[in-house]
């Protein structure tokens, strides 16, 4: 099935839907904000039906030095909410900002996304976490708690007989979205959502916080940080489905920290490599997008001309977060095709946009995941087979492709100096039920090393054989392998693209997926080159 057949006549998810909606403010008055915090006065007069309580986050955070009219023992639950008109129940999406000058209210910066989602029949809110902003560190657990407590407020409204939202919130369809440190925090929120306690803090409601255990459909991170807060159990592994979007010109979170969060999520379990936790993850790397322009009220952090125009960046956010929301919240599953292959959105994205994307489906079997160790590459169990490098230097490396922080993920570096070299994976077809899957997925990306030509797409041939039939496909026919976009500072990021080759195309070429014998990467399109591969899977 082609992408077009799979998706049918999909409408641009970045365009408004047909639902009318109301926008209002909720908050926890009385709040006597001083003149220096005048942007927050709006929360002192919330809609009368949407007055909220306060929460105690003192176990997690102190407040910064801004003159907040409350302490960390009674922070408000303030926010903006867009509510579709109608009976519902409606799914819920809640956005949280990240760290920024606390004297500027960051909260309204995602109203453009809330309005989009509400027009499609989703209750969408953007929340006030500004009191945690400042020159602080390690407070992202508190941001997660605030995010979850806002969800709890929606649950309370949904269950309160006289409330306008009574029975209108689909509590098993929730998307949490965070930007920047708020993006790191949605990962912690996904983790905390399942916990009964965090340290000394019991999350059963007896001391005010929790219980949570929401039905989170996905957590989405926009240009997130990573590991600023580290739980006692180690770096957070996001347990829910996970989506990340990040810009190559990000001059705040310039190290693409969220790459590490993505790699930790839904990784192969070496003890049970065929077991999946049933969740997907997807990544979108946006060339020329910066950090701040995902928030409509933050001034760009990049000098003029460095990043794409703000309307373009907001359009990309609308299209791809819109597709995510429609897919996971409204069950319009055809929009998963946009997550699997960003090329489907080409007509909806700004002209000339260059994107790199990854997608890992819950249903997959690894042919090669490379996480066995740093020894020469192997075919990964339970698939059995051999790997032969013919003229190509194949070395597994424990290096962060995006630079900066240490990584625990191994990638395979493939370097060649003459055309016609190849990496050949021969497999025992009895151990690879390829016919049960829809596609071969290979994560691969080129570096900015000298063997690659600046600003030229890399290319090679993917050969797949069963018995006597072999089918060959140019990688570039599946997707572009872009040269890394120069970063604002620091090392260029090597961001792998997921190439998806439909199994149906193999069948069309006479290759029997139930008798698949070999997969080869043949480096015949460029005289020299260096690429990095993450994993090779059969997947849906």
């Amino acid at each position, binding site marked *: 099935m082609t992408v077009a057949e799979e998706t049918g006549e999909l409408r641009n998810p970045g365009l408004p839907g047909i639902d009318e909606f109301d926008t209002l403010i909720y908050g926890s008055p009385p709040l006597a904000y001083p003149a220096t915090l005048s942007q927050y006065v709006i929360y002192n007069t919330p809609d009368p039906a949407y007055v909220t309580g306060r929460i105690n986050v003192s176990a997690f955070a102190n407040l*910064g030095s801004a003159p907040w009219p409350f302490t960390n023992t009674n922070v408000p639950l303030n926010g903006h909410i867009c509510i579709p008109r109608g009976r519902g129940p409606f799914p819920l999406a809640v956005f949280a900002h*990240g760290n920024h000058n606390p004297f500027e209210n960051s909260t309204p910066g995602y109203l453009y996304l809330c309005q989009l989602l509400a027009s499609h029949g989703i209750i969408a809110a953007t929340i006030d976490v500004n009191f945690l902003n400042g020159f602080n*560190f390690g407070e992202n657990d508190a941001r997660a708690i605030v995010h979850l407590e806002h969800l709890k407020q929606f649950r309370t409204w949904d269950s309160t007989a006289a409330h306008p939202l009574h029975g209108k919130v689909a509590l098993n369809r929730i998307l949490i979205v965070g930007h920047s440190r708020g993006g790191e925090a949605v990962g912690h929120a996904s983790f905390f959502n399942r916990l009964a306690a965090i340290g000394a*803090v019991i999350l059963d409601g007896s001391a005010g916080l929790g219980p949570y255990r929401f039905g989170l459909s996905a957590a989405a991170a926009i240009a997130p940080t990573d590991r600023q807060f580290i739980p006692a159990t180690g770096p957070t592994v996001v347990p829910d489905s996970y989506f990340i979007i990040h810009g190559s010109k990000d*001059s705040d979170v310039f190290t693409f920290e969220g790459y590490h969060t993505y790699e930790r999520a839904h990784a192969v379990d070496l003890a049970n490599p065929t077991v999946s936790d049933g969740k997907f993850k997807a990544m979108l790397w946006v060339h020329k997008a910066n950090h701040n322009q995902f928030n409509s009220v933050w001034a760009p952090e990049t000098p003029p001309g460095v990043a794409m125009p703000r309307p373009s960046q907001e359009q990309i956010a609308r299209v791809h977060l819109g597709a995510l929301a429609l897919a996971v919240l409204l069950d319009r599953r055809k929009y998963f095709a946009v997550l699997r292959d960003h090329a489907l959105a080409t007509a909806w994205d700004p002209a000339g946009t260059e994107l790199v994307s990854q997608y890992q489906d819950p249903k997959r079997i690894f042919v090669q995941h490379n996480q066995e160790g740093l020894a020469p590459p192997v075919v990964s169990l339970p698939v059995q087979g051999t790997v032969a490098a013919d003229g190509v230097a194949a070395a597994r490396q424990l290096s962060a492709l995006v630079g900066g922080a240490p990584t625990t993920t191994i990638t395979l570096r493939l370097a060649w100096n003459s055309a016609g070299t190849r990496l050949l994976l021969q497999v025992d077809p009895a151990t690879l039920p390829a016919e049960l899957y829809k596609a071969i997925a290979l994560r691969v990306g080129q570096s900015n090393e000298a063997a690659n030509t600046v600003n030229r797409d890399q290319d090679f041939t993917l050969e797949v054989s069963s018995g006597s039939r072999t089918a060959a496909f140019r990688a570039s026919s599946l997707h572009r392998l872009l040269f890394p976009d120069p970063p604002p500072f620091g090392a260029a990021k090597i961001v792998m693209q997921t190439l998806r080759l439909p199994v149906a195309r193999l069948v069309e070429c006479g290759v029997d997926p139930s008798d698949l014998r070999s997969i080869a990467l043949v480096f015949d399109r460029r005289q020299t080159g260096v690429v990095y591969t993450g994993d090779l899977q059969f997947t849906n």
Partner: protein
Amino acid sequence: MQLPEPPKIAAVEVVPAQPTEADRAAIAHMGLKEAKAVYVVKVRLKAKPPVTSMAWALYVGDERVSKYWEYKDGIYFVVFDPQFFVRHKGKRLRFSQNDTDFFDTDVELAPAPSVAEGNAMPLQSDVLN
């Protein structure tokens, strides 16, 4: 554009103060002896860097300070266990943005002052003013 520069430290001061209710709960959870005082480590900065999402993690020797907060002259963190100062005696404060590249400051952790029995401890909010 230039890579961000780490903050420069002007001075470090350690001030005993009353534990908050949340501090007491955390101290009990950690199995530490009930404390009359906690220690507020005030790190006075020559200039505060701009507020960004990327952060400068603060290390004392090789130990990352898990959380710090802003006050008018810089940043501070709170230590529950006085053994922290024994463990890190003479260790320098360092900053890192990625846990890989470190920027040493020339400033050592100050020792914890002794806490005399019977003395009333100030509130943490008071020692930060």
